[in-house]
């Protein structure tokens, strides 16, 4: 299926994510991370990005190591099962491969900042972060009258990976949603990566499951397996081994560069990447179908 907003990942990244863009990714936290999009950003040597997200399980570390990133606006950057993000450490501790600016958040504060942008509110007040030094290392947080004011975060682009979408970007996502809905609403534009590209009838049969207005969606990329090594409900389990391997190899800058060459720069696209992964081990085989829902109207 083509038409609508369907394009390749290379086209989507090339058209919609210029140097200097702010990009929200990894909005479901551990699952459904759009690694394929991140790797294409690296291949296209995008520079000076601002990365926005609650935690990033691996992806932000890879982009930092590749020199794509100028600024991090996140609550956590590392490797959830393995610990520290080694590229993140090298960049912040030694400026390698380049200096990056870090604006600290907590997870809740990231969500509130995105909701503030979604509702076009000047800020959202909250009691979380009271007493935390995060208030000192993020100029977009301010204590006034006993509450923390979280200023809006409006990503230029939100990149999400969903189980299915139609060519116009009506996207169905299930499993934990994290901050995906508010990231999409807050963003100027959305790139929808999907495991399955389906006919409009499929997604329109269940409009409550459509994530956000297709008016925000600028590109739909059919990219099966695009979340590896992160999991995707109904499709893929998490590849803990790949996370471990990345943590091990990225401990040194040389190791990271070899990993990058092997898994990103040396492969033309996601299809070629997946040929190197022992995917069958990770594939979800059992089906667990949700109970039917009837939208009958007459």
């Amino acid at each position, binding site marked *: 299926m083509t038409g609508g907003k369907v394009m390749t990942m290379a086209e989507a990244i090339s058209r919609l994510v210029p140097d200097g863009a702010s990009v929200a990714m990894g909005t479901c936290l551990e699952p459904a991370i759009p690694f394929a999009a991140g790797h294409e950003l690296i291949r296209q040597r995008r520079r000076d990005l601002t990365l926005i997200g609650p935690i990033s399980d691996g992806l932000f570390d890879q982009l930092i190591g590749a020199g794509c990133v100028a600024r991090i606006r996140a609550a956590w950057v590392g490797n959830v099962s393995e610990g520290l993000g080694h590229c*993140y450490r090298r960049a912040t501790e030694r400026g390698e491969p380049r200096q990056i600016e870090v604006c600290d958040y907590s997870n809740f504060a990231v969500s509130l900042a995105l909701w503030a942008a979604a509702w076009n509110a000047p800020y959202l007040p909250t009691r979380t972060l009271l007493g935390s030094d995060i208030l000192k290392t993020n100029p977009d947080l301010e204590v006034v009258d006993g509450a923390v004011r979280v200023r809006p975060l409006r990503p230029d682009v939100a990149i999400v990976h969903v189980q299915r979408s139609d060519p116009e970007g009506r996207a169905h996502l299930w499993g934990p949603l994290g901050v995906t809905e508010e990231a999409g609403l807050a963003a100027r534009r959305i790139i929808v990566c999907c495991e399955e590209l389906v006919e409009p009838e499929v997604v329109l049969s269940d409009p409550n499951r459509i994530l956000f207005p297709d008016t925000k969606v600028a590109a739909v990329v059919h990219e099966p397996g695009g979340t590896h090594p992160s999991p995707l409900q109904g499709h893929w389990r998490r590849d803990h081994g790949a996370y471990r391997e990345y943590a091990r190899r990225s401990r040194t800058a040389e190791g990271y560069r070899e990993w990058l060459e092997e898994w990103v720069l040396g492969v033309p696209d996601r299809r070629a990447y997946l040929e190197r992964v022992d995917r069958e081990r990770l594939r979800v085989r059992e089906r667990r179908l949700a109970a039917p829902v009837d939208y009958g109207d007459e």
Partner: protein
Amino acid sequence: MSERYTAQELMVAAAAREIKDGELVFVGMRLPILAYGVAHHTHAPRARALYELGLMREQAPDAFLGTMGDPPNVVGALWATRMSNVMALMAQGEVDLGFIGGAEVDRFGNLNTSYIGDPSRPRTKLPGSGGGADIAILSRRWVTLMRHEPRRLVERVSYVTSPGYGDGPDWRRRHGLPGGGPAAIVTTLGVLRFPEGGGEAYLATIHPGHSLEEVRGATGWDLTVADDLGPTPEPTDEELAWIRRLDPDGFWTRADR
């Protein structure tokens, strides 16, 4: 140290016992996921879990979880939703207990998971808060787990990511923090607790095979000790069986982790 179990297994069992049956528990990354599983399958079958990525459960899956977002954690969930919705419950004071992974903690239970050294050019950049600051500020009480080393249990953390009792018992009230503050620090050597109303951590129990001298030597401040200092109860056979069932390859609990 015993040959029956690893230090990590003892920590998981000790953390699991912090969960009371029927409580709503905000489960952080890594070891706490396993602790909730053990608690659910042993003494706290009605304890509920909230996960920041947007899940509520009343039972732990009978499966290994590398992260809270692994697919088995979604099947059987009571609610799969947005992060802001589960944070809403915590902001309303509904969360009895939260778990936060720690890198560095001080005598007042303040946690640093952000920067060792000057934040503008840190000696070590740690991953950051995640939901840690939210849990520390909003949950009714919270527990952290960490390796017991002098560089981790320090007199004063240089950066407070997740506030404990600040500089003393009254600090949270003065700064308007709604939650109750830290209840325990579970380490590789013992369990530290805090006095009613908050304040300075004291050593409550020592893990079997370790001595008070060893604990004091591994603590970066002059550690207060409970009058009734005793040993940390060993993991029961049932607890160990569940730990090994939920972590069959020792991903979290091998001795070298």
